[in-house]
């Protein structure tokens, strides 16, 4: 077996371990009667964390073997970076777990990592050659530290989500209930994206188009999903494939829009099916599972993870980034979109910390802020990489 295959297998093992770990954490927090259930829960919890650690080690083995194979830190395309991000989230969870021993966190952290790895797997997993500016050990240091910082910050969102799952009453019609359901719905959209990619790939769907870009150049593009939106001035080149329904102006990448469309459709169908079968909101299904968590403690976990993550993030995403930029381009700061969004993330968490200084910005409000912070991190990962053009764009 070649090193790269071995590496892929390690990743697969990690993925399976996280799935099993999620189930075990589910068992650990199940609300059963006190006839020795506490002890049983404890055993489940112990097993769950062991499986998680094993998964993490396999994930690390993936990372290291791929590093050896490609000769550079595997963080240089969308697949590699996102997979590593998933790994660091698990790492950060393990760290916080050993500080606070809250099993219920695993019930959120593991599925989040699973979704992130699933998302990563939808991108080409081949190793790409590095352009000259990326051939620097500062790249390695910068990206890995920044991703670690983001992952620790992400744990505050995990704690926040858990907090809100318990604190938001699924029975009363409130704004919080609406937004919680929206957050959970978003998770279904990620599932929708994964399903859409897998389904159409499985069907071998491919349709070629020619189109004209903003500069008036004629180019070709391949869609891997039925084209709902057509590129500017498109012509279908493959026989027997669907003609787009709507044509888009050249600023909009209609191919990506089509992907978003199918993710929405499929994600929403799955969401509606689950709602129809259970006849409950997703929030209502999860709410009873988390009754035993201690809100005060969760609030502190959220705050502590921001405190721990903030300096790491600053170091990786700003300090090391500036050193590298200085070395590569002679300017430590260039207002590139990705840079700006790192700054925005940083300012946002600074605002979070300062808001906690004034009373009332603890508990629920703080939990919501943590979720917004994670949304900014995801925005930086997904939208800034894939939609906004810049030095860092992956596609």
């Amino acid at each position, binding site marked *: 077996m070649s090193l790269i295959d071995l590496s892929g297998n390690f990743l697969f093992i990690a993925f399976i371990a996280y799935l099993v770990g999620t189930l075990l954490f589910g068992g650990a*927090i199940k609300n059963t009667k006190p006839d020795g259930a506490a002890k049983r*829960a404890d055993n489940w919890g112990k097993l769950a964390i062991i499986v998680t650690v094993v998964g993490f080690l396999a994930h690390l083995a993936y990372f290291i073997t791929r590093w050896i194979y490609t000769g550079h830190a595997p963080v240089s395309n969308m697949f590699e970076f996102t997979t590593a991000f998933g790994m660091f989230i698990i790492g950060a969870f393990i760290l916080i777990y050993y*500080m*606070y*021993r*809250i*099993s*219920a966190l695993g019930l959120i952290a593991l599925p989040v990592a699973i979704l992130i790895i699933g998302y990563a797997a939808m*991108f*080409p997993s*081949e190793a*790409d*050659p*590095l*352009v*000259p*500016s990326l*051939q620097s050990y*500062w790249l390695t240091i910068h990206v890995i530290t920044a991703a670690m910082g983001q992952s620790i910050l992400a744990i505050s969102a995990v704690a926040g989500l858990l907090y809100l799952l318990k604190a938001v009453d699924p029975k009363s019609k409130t704004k919080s209930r609406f937004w919680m359901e929206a957050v959970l719905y978003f998770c279904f959209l990620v599932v929708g994206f994964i399903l859409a990619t897998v389904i159409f790939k499985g069907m071998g769907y491919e349709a070629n188009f020619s189109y004209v870009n*903003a500069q008036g150049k004629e*180019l070709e593009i391949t869609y891997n999903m039925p084209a709902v939106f057509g590129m500017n001035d498109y012509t279908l080149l493959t026989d027997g494939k669907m003609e787009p329904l709507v044509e888009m*102006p*050249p*600023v909009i990448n209609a191919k990506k829009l089509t992907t978003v469309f199918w993710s929405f459709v499929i994600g929403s169908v799955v969401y509606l099916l689950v709602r129809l079968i259970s006849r409950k909101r997703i929030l209502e299904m999860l709410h009873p599972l988390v*009754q*035993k*968590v*201690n*809100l*005060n403690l969760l609030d*502190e976990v959220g705050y*502590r993870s921001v*405190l*721990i993550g*903030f*300096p790491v993030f*600053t*170091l990786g995403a700003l300090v090391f980034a500036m050193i590298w930029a200085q*070395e*590569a*381009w*002679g300017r*430590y700061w260039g*207002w*590139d*979109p990705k840079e*700006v*969004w790192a*700054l*925005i993330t940083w*300012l*946002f968490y600074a*605002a979070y910390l*300062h808001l906690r200084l004034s*009373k009332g910005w603890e508990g629920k409000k703080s939990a919501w802020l943590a979720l917004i912070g994670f949304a900014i991190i995801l925005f930086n990962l997904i939208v*800034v990489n894939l939609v*906004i053009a*810049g030095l860092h764009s*992956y*596609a």
Partner: protein
Amino acid sequence: MEKLICVCGHENPAGTKLCGKCGRPLTEEAKESKIVDMKYDGAAIRSKTRNKSIVDKVWNFFSSVKVGIALIIINLVAASIGTIFPQEFYISVSTEAEKAAYYEDTYGSIGKLYYELGLSDVYNAWWFQILVGMLAISIIVASIDRGIPLHRSLKNQRVKRHESFMKRQRVVAEGPVANGDPAQTLNMIEEKMKSLKYKVRRDGNALLAERGRFSRYGPYINHCGLIIFLAAVMLRLVPGFYVDESMWVREGEVRAVPGMEGYFIENEAFILELHDNEKTENQELQGVNAVAKNFQTNAKLYKQAEDAVPGQTDNLELVKEYSIRVNHPLQYEGYSFYQMDFRMNELSVMNFQLTNKETGEALGPVSIDLTNPQDEYIINEQAKVELLGYYPDFSGFENGEPQTLTPTPNNPAFIFKMTTPEHPDGEVSFVAIQQTIEPNGDNEYKMAFQGVETRNMSGLTVHKDSSIPLLAVGGAIFMIGVAIGSYWNHRRLWVEQLEDGTIRLAAHTNKNWFGMKKDLDAVSEYAKLPKYLDQSEEIEEKEGDSAL
């Protein structure tokens, strides 16, 4: 200024929440609250004590954390606006009109609006810089406002605190010692707390155990670092502090370095290497054929002799030879040369033969250096070619005159006057690539095109930034400050043993209650202290257990 006199007799400045000596609540609000506000240990902050003059009002505005947060958010939003469309410095057009056209053509009317509102250059807008400036002022003012009183109250802590202070802490306990010798209790607490790395002070029947006080200074240190950093950024505006020039050097050329008086750089060769991998799926998706592996300029840096005339290139002294690559700038005396751009295969020399059209007889070669053409090329005594006109980037005729778009030899065109034995007065011919015009009808001779020589050109930028050391200092202080404030926390335990031997205790931490409680559990177990109560959990109505 008005003073608040506590029942214990201590004089406190107006605005103080908790007496600086005994800790008794002084304000109505503090008296009514179940858990007191321990920010700044209840000390009065400057902004709470004065509010008369304009200066006070401005001061109070900037010291408010609410205002500070608002400024952080406003800066955040303003910065994000600049990422909607690419900023002007990322698009490769230069004139205002071209920029306006670019935004309108590429992004339609929204793009036009974006440009007209100046959002296409947000980060250089005056209002953006004012926002950053206000943030900086806010940081400075707030830090002075709170830092000094906090420092005072931390330094002057009394061991003994009043009951009303103790009872209003978040974690409290009161009751008899479970078993053992009450007379030994304080000693045991001291012993245990010391083993937990606390500093312990005693005052009669009272005890104060404290740990990690220095972490309270973390935010002030990091704010200080931020300010130094911002100041360093501003230093760039000082003339001479900052050099940022770009230059093009062709292979074989020696050019004066802009912004670096008396220095010349030579481009010996420009090298472009490509990866020879099979096209990956991502390359396929992005329509990239080959990925660059290396951009490199083999450069020589020269210094002019001391007494040389400015611009003179003889007598140069080689000071450094280096292969400039991306991520590997040439560095010399604070200046750095970066590999930024390149142009491959620029036309450098065009070769012709002066040829008789009919017989095909060649009189001799003419080789024209396109960056440095001569007026006259003498072949022999009777034959020469004069260059009447040279158009390096020929773009067509206007009123019969040939035009050139740029001074770069992208599409060279010439007007030759060919003097030959048959035509001592010369024949005139206009020659461009794939085009020849003979204004006087049929010439006997022509300039037969033989071929071109090309060379590469490197785009380098020259940088000097003397603010970097200060920037690094600011950044380092910031990092140290955040680390201190984030990874350490201030924990305090006040204990008083009452006359009847019972224990009253209260604990406070600025961050890590989980850790504080662990310490409390340890000392309670050891010294058999009464069970403590977290009053905030009571308020939250206790649900579930923390074991999970």
